[in-house]
């Protein structure tokens, strides 16, 4: 094995047409015990299930102790870690040292197996009549926290509708160290009816994916009624169906919703080896720092013509962090970039900490650059 060269990567947003792809996997929580008919499982309100649009469709991912009804969920970048909020106060069967309030957000550290408070709603000024109904992070595990509430909620002098999503920014250590930042999603301006209640939300690339509690008419373009189990995505100008959960009963709400998350970046571990196939090269790398990476793309560029890279392979066959390629003629450089259904991660940084630009042709877009957890 001969070590040739390695590179790392990332970039600014660049809209390059990508191949059509499934919006799944996504992660969901039902509001009630739900007998789905696609694979015959029964997700419970305290279980996070992974959903894929192909068999086996629904597979359990996390069961929260104490059987609390979960409200919002977020799949963090840190492997095995989750954020979630509760329908009612709970100490998670003793897994928490004190009762968590429905306006709080709890973090589960998957590596340590520990639950703790991530966001303390009372300290952040959320009134006691409000539940955190939907949540997600913007910009990685250290980014802003986006929240939606179950009822019109007063924050400062303003009220926010149950369809609105607001941002909180970390300003100090501890679960109370959050401050209201801005309105992120204005439901009324985005055509959500006054009674519309967002009960699950997450971003997927440039799209905002929503779950609503009841059949809701959304538009533009035109008026489309989205049923529970049909998840619309808002582009900033229009709605489109993001995913329709197979076998999902209309009587159940998708109470918690999380998309693939951030692809992250691979550490500086790329090795280029001689392949057993004459003329081929074997690329070997380590997993992304984020569990949001679902696959990896191989980019090839011409040495001396910097940032000439373009994708030559968008799938890590076997997901073994190893891929064989047939190099182009002349001297070449290679980048490996993690991606998922929502976009691709970092191409690494060049001198000065500046993100490398995206490829001429990309495996996924947009690019989502976040710091590692």
């Amino acid at each position, binding site marked *: 094995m001969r070590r040739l060269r390695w590179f790392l990567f990332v970039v600014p947003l660049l809209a390059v047409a990508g191949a059509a792809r499934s919006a799944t996997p996504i992660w969901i929580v039902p509001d009630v*015990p739900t007998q789905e008919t696609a694979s015959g499982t029964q997700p419970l309100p305290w279980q996070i299930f992974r959903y894929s649009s192909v068999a086996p469709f629904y597979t359990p991912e996390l069961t929260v102790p104490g059987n609390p009804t979960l409200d919002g969920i977020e799949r963090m970048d840190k492997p095995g870690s989750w954020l979630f909020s509760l329908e009612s106060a709970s100490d998670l069967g003793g897994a928490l040292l004190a009762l968590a309030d429905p306006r709080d957000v709890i973090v589960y550290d998957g590596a340590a197996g520990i639950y703790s408070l991530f966001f303390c709603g009372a300290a952040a000024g959320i009134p006691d009549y409000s539940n955190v109904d939907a949540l997600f992070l913007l910009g990685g595990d250290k980014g802003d926290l986006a929240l939606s509430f179950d009822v*019109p909620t*007063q924050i400062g002098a303003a*009220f926010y509708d149950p369809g609105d999503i607001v941002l909180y920014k970390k300003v100090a250590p501890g679960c109370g160290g959050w401050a209201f930042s801005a*309105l992120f999603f204005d*439901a009324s301006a985005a055509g959500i009816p006054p009674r519309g209640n967002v009960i699950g939300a997450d971003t997927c690339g440039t799209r905002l994916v929503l779950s609503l509690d009841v*059949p809701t008419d959304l538009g533009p373009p035109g008026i489309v*009624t989205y049923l529970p189990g049909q998840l619309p995505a808002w582009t900033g100008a229009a709605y489109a169906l993001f995913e329709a959960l197979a076998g999902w009963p*209309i*009587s159940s709400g998708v109470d918690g919703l999380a998309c693939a998350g951030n692809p992250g970046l691979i550490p500086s571990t790329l090795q280029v080896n001689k392949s057993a196939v004459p003329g081929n090269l074997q690329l070997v790398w380590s997993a992304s720092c984020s569990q949001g990476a679902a696959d990896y793309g191989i980019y090839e560029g011409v040495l001396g013509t910097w940032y000439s890279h373009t994708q030559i392979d968008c799938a890590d066959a076997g997901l073994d962090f190893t891929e064989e390629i047939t190099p182009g003629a002349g001297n070449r450089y290679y980048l490996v970039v993690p991606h998922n259904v929502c976009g691709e991660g970092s191409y690494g940084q060049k001198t000065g900490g500046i993100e490398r630009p995206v490829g001429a042709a990309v495996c996924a877009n947009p690019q989502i650059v976040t710091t590692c957890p």
Partner: protein
Amino acid sequence: MSARMLGLLSLLVFTLPPSFAAEGRTPVWLPGTAISTPGRYIVTRNLIGGAPTISITVGNVDLDLNGMTLDAGGVAAPVIIVVAGGTGDVVIHDGTVLNGGENIAVTAPGQRLVLEDLKIGGSNGAAIHLTDSQNFVVRRVTISGSNGEGILVDGPINKQGTIEKNLVRRTQATAIRVIGGSSLAVVENRVEEVVGPAGSYGIALDNCESCLVVQNTVHNTGDTGIFLRGFKSGKVYNNTVHKAGFHGIFLDSTGSDSLVLNNVVSASGAVLAGGCGLFVDADRVMIEGNTLNANSGVGLRLGAPSTLLTFGRNTARGNTGVGVGPCAVAPALFPPNSCNDGAGNTTFGTNLIPGPPLF
């Protein structure tokens, strides 16, 4: 931007009804929905049209209107129709039902029907029409503006039920009418402005056995305030009737063996002169403690068909006595405030009807 000033949005908090389809209920969001599978349903938006707007064709259905309005738009069809023949356990609650032929129509025999916490208006026929619901409850329903009855329960099957704490106003026919009942309670209802012609009663029960008519208020009716035909072994007590179009309370000759206690009736005959406060043609009825003043006819009238009535401690003053007589049967009472034409009726005294002491 949905940021709003505190005052305005405080109002919003209290005026927007929730729309949650929680607890596994199936949402109903389209007019014309037919519910054909047992389960729990919740209306998630106002529904207009549909003819009928919602049909229930199966039993074991809980339909939560969720504070929403169902408006049939003035068509001849009902707003909600229940045609769950031979089945039961249908519950409809918590919403507004407007502008149907009949607003809620139960057209097939069934059991265990519950209608609760509804607001009903603009019905072209009966606001609620139950046909042969063997066990039913109509509770806390507010009805106004019906071109037919307010609550109509009919059909050949003997009905058991409770009609309780309803407000019924401005109907063109009888406000609350039950035909064929037993173990039926009509309790604490408020009836107002029965504006229909003769035959438009405040409360009317036909052939009711072991029934209660208790603590109702009836005000301003086109005909008799509380009309009891074939009323047997029942109790009529603590009701208040004012400005009945004809009699205040009437028990016809096919009834018997009941108690009429502590009712207050005044200003009867508001439409048809000669209306009495309490008119009893039935047999073996105990009449006690009623206040029967200022009626067009007499306050207390014991009709010719009546027999073996017992009465005492009633008050009747300021009555006009229009159209009564001959009032000649013993014990001879005292027009214009009281009149006895029945045989074998007995006073046990202390009536405060002008007459001899201890009569």
